């Protein structure tokens, strides 16, 4: 399928091709990533389940799950959204579909190689930059920079006068992601050591979240909600506030991940204050989207894309309330390094950003393939599996984290904490399994949409048509 377009002339490639390839790759990586996640959770719940294979040891697989989800599912879904939303908002075509198709191919190959080498044990030993640095460089120059170039050039060649909020975020976030990966991996290129290495590891990890995943997910919601509901964005001024406060406040609190490390105290205090100020973009974003929904709240119930997006936006409320305050010294003292943080990370990635991206993929694929979704029942099933599975995961890990925190503070022998949190480890595995099964159904639904979905008449949007099944 893909090779048909790799060597075709750019003009001969249908609009949306690269977005469709990115979307299906993203869904496949989502199935793989959540499958690995539920396997890992099972290993924690039942440590004697599969033993004796080096490959299936928890310590070898944990980072494969994390990287598959971040760089496979989340980032590729972003790329898919960028490849169709950027030209749509510029009233133009994608700058180069061919470059998009090639970056999709490079991305899949590079990620597969990166995950396999990491699974074999080839790792840098630095969290969130676990890939060995040759893979990082390949990802940067053959994947990320081509994708970003496509976004920037499409915006530069737009046929509208202004640039809509979503496209500011796309252009700026892809630029910042390049800088973050370049700087964050400096310890590996130049063998920087000690606290410099430790700090840059978390500078990188924090900014992947803060300057790439959070703003791009928000940018997608800025497109899908006004587009699907037909309401104009509530306020562009609040959009401005969101954008600038992301750049200023979200890029600075990296040190709050290392509150117990011997870093300069001024840096930790500064990071903690800036961390609370992340509430500024967060509140701006959530209020802007929810106010855009005015008069169209029926679509939250009736329309699957709106429901996914708004659920993601609503999940951003607990996410940011946790995120703003859990990194202050007093709260961090209690919950640092516990399951609370694991729950928070899944609230950000599996809650907030995944729900928004799922909507972007549902909407984009129906629009680009000009086919109505194969089955609404399966899409609803997918929604509830994701939401219930995620909720079980989040609640159980939050409880486990509070138990761990109490055990930490009151000097309980560690094994008693392990015993106390074991039921929640099993609950987390169950929740993760629901998410995985929901995603398998989603993959089937999207595949059937591509094969036998009802064709959309020209000029009509997918949700304007009644469902046949």
């Amino acid at each position, binding site marked *: 399928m893909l090779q048909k377009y790799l060597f075709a002339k750019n003009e001969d490639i249908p609009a949306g091709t690269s977005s469709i390839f990115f979307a299906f790759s993203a869904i496949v990586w989502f199935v793989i990533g959540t499958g690995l996640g539920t396997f890992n959770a099972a290993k924690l719940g039942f440590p004697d389940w599969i033993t004796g294979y080096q490959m299936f040891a928890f310590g070898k697989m*944990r980072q494969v799950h994390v990287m598959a989800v971040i760089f496979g599912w989340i980032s590729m879904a972003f790329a898919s959204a960028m490849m169709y939303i950027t030209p749509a908002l510029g009233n133009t075509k994608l700058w180069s579909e061919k470059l998009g198709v090639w970056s999709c191919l490079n991305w899949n190959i590079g990620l597969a190689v990166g995950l396999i080498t990491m699974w074999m044990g*080839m790792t840098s*030993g630095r969290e969130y930059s676990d890939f060995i640095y040759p893979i990082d460089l390949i990802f940067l120059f053959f994947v990320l920079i081509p994708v970003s170039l496509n976004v920037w050039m499409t915006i530069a060649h737009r046929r509208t006068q202004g640039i809509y909020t979503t496209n500011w975020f796309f252009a700026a976030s892809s630029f910042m992601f390049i800088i973050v990966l370049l700087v964050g991996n400096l310890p590996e290129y130049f063998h920087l050591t000690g*606290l410099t290495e430790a700090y840059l590891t978390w500078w990188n990890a924090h900014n992947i979240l803060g300057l790439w995943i959070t703003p791009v997910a928000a940018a997608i919601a800025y497109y899908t909600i006004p587009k699907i509901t037909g309401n104009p964005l509530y306020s562009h001024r609040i959009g401005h506030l969101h954008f*600038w406060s992301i*750049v200023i406040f979200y890029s600075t609190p990296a040190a709050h991940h290392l509150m117990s490390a011997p870093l300069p105290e001024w840096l930790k205090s500064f990071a903690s204050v800036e961390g609370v100020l992340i509430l500024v973009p967060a509140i701006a974003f959530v209020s802007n989207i929810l106010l855009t929904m005015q008069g169209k709240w029926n679509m939250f119930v009736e329309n699957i894309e709106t429901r996914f997006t708004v659920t993601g936006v609503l999940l951003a409320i607990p996410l940011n309330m946790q995120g703003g305050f859990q990194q202050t010294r007093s709260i961090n003292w209690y919950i640092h*390094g516990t399951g609370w943080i694991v729950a928070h990370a899944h609230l950000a990635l599996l809650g907030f950003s995944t729900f928004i991206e799922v909507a972007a993929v549902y909407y984009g694929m129906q629009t680009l393939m000009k086919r109505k979704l194969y089955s609404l029942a399966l899409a609803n099933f997918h929604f509830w599996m994701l939401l219930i599975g995620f909720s079980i995961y989040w609640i159980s890990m939050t409880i486990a984290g509070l138990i761990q925190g109490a055990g930490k503070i009151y000097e309980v022998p560690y094994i008693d904490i392990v015993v106390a949190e074991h039921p929640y480890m099993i609950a987390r595995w169950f929740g993760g399994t629901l998410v995985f099964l929901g995603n398998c159904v989603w993959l089937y639904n999207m595949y059937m949409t591509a094969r036998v979905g009802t064709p959309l008449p020209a000029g009509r949007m997918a949700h304007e048509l009644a469902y046949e099944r």
Partner: protein
Amino acid sequence: MAFREYKIGSVMFGVALSLSMAITLVMPSYNIIAVGATATALDKQLTYGQVSGFSFHDPFLKGEGKPKKVLLKQDPMTGAPMESMYAYVFSADTPFPSGILHPQVLGKGVRELSIEQGKINDALTPGGAVFVVKEGEFEGKPYPYIENATATKGWKPDEVLKSAGDANTIYAGAGKQMFVREGCWWCHTLLPEQTQDFQVFGPPPLLGDFNGESPTAFGSDRKAPDLLHVGSRNSSKEWMMLHFFNPRLVQPHSIMPRFDYLWGETDANGDKINYDAWRKAYIEYRNGERVMPPDVPAYRSDSEIRYLIDFVLNLK
């Protein structure tokens, strides 16, 4: 280019991002590089070698190209008894750590002493070198420093290893490679937190304890106890051996994975280890069908589990 309507915005964006990076990257680095290395930092980098994790010296993280820490009880050249001390043996072609290659990471006092009295600049990778950590005085203040014993005392790597013997050789450098590769740090941190941790798990690390070490592998998720000082609270090789082979042998409620595969194909006597039979016997034991668990095979002195146990016990 059609960003012209956004000229001010683009400039503002550049200014904002640069300011953020100046505050979060440039300013802290002045503080961090001003910190001098402690004796702990010198010990760690001489023990772990240049870099743990991936490098082209050890792409598959097998523990190759790592120094060995030895406990010397006699002078390796003359054989005369002496007060026991640790030496760090870099055999030929073992890459040197940051402190030797870039002494500026050590901080001023340590750097000057290491270069002038320790002669670390005379160390050459092809021939290998033996280092020791000494106490010295610079501008009236005490500092630890690295001494290149190959240059100052004529100690040769091979002779030092031979003099110490296998029982007094600590493969903690290769062991840290195992620690990183096997993902121990996904559950065990190397950073006691600002809580009562300090009473249970030992004192927090100091500012200068990390100079020259990479990766620091602090870890972020505590599904298990902190290990920074684990060698001080449990120094039993036998306990470690049982615990790594199957943690449930010594701690029935543990959720730690088994690391039996680090024993390799054969045991200390060169006999093939029958893992299937062991697991079968263990299941019988767990089901109450036998009274004692099966014996854990003794590990080879060059097995990966020996490296890892050496690393863990060396965390004092």
